[in-house]
């Protein structure tokens, strides 16, 4: 609150503050706060704002640096797409390529793009892509079974006269391998069947002895009615045919996440 009367003339009013007292005494007064460009000869006042409101002229554009303009990120993405497409084509034709293989190749390409980008260009987004690919690879590797052979529902029922292949694979989905009509002709035949995620049913012939080794990373295992479930479930079963065996089927069954069932042919109609 001011104690000065409202009608007092300021020039003749008694000094009250330290600054006013110093001024009256003739001593130099240091301003308590910046008072403007006029007090400092080294400072240049800003140009006046023109009527159109533009205070400063636009900054001149810096010349483009060719090393930073090199599109290493775009090139890396393109290489990854070409790589994935090529591996996809190969998997369709003859070569067995798992999802983990494709993702790992993409991760290597991403890393190489970043290494190039350390000296050349700006590899935008490649670090994030590398992290995503690594996490996806960790997930696929954790399943424990290669994600190969495609996606969907598949029923495989070989004809009696056709020799069995070494393996059947499906990445994600439902796979039924119906060996009811297969004729082993007294031989010992080994067959591997894998499924990454989903349900796998193997129907074995009624007239052969069967030795099954089965693994499930997480899920349920049912070998001829003997059920187990949980994490890292594995079991082994031997089933002999009541009559004369027409051969021995050595079955290796692996599923990542899901369910496995192995049963005799007559059970197929009851399911």
């Amino acid at each position: 609150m001011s104690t000065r009367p409202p009608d007092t003339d300021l020039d003749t009013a008694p000094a009250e503050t330290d600054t006013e007292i110093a001024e009256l005494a003739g001593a130099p007064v240091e301003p308590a706060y910046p008072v403007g460009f006029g007090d400092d000869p080294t400072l240049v006042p800003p140009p006046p704002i023109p009527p159109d409101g533009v205070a400063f002229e636009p900054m001149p554009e810096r010349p483009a640096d060719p090393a930073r303009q090199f599109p290493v990120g775009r090139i890396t993405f393109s290489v990854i797409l070409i790589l994935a497409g090529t591996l996809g084509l190969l998997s369709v034709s003859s070569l067995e390529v798992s999802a983990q293989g494709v993702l790992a190749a993409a991760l290597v390409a991403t890393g190489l793009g970043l290494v190039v980008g350390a000296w050349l260009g700006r590899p935008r987004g490649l670090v994030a892509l590398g992290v995503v690919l690594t996490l996806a690879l960790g997930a696929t590797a954790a399943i424990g079974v290669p994600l190969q052979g495609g996606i969907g529902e598949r029923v495989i029922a070989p004809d009696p006269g056709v020799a069995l292949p070494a393996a059947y694979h499906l990445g994600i989905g439902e796979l039924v391998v119906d060996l009811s009509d297969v004729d082993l002709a007294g031989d010992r035949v080994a067959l591997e069947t894998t499924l990454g995620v989903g349900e796998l049913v193997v129907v074995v012939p009624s007239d052969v002895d069967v030795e099954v080794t089965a693994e499930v990373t997480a899920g349920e295992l049912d070998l001829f009615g003997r059920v187990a479930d949980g994490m890292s479930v594995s079991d082994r079963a031997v089933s002999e045919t009541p009559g004369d065996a027409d051969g021995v089927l050595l079955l290796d069954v692996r599923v990542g996440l899901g369910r496995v069932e192995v049963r005799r042919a007559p059970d197929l109609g009851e399911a």
Partner: protein
Amino acid sequence: MHPLNVFRLLAGLLFVGLGLVFLADAASWFELEVRYVWPALLLGLGAAGLLSSVRRA
């Protein structure tokens, strides 16, 4: 060429190494322990960022 970016270089080498390890696992050349992957990723990226910052400082 612009000045070396240490973070990109180390992160790139980390991803190349991890990719080769996963490729070897897919080819059944050896069995990968998945539980080591995410700590390795975090350690690698963290070390890359740290070295890059120290170098810049």
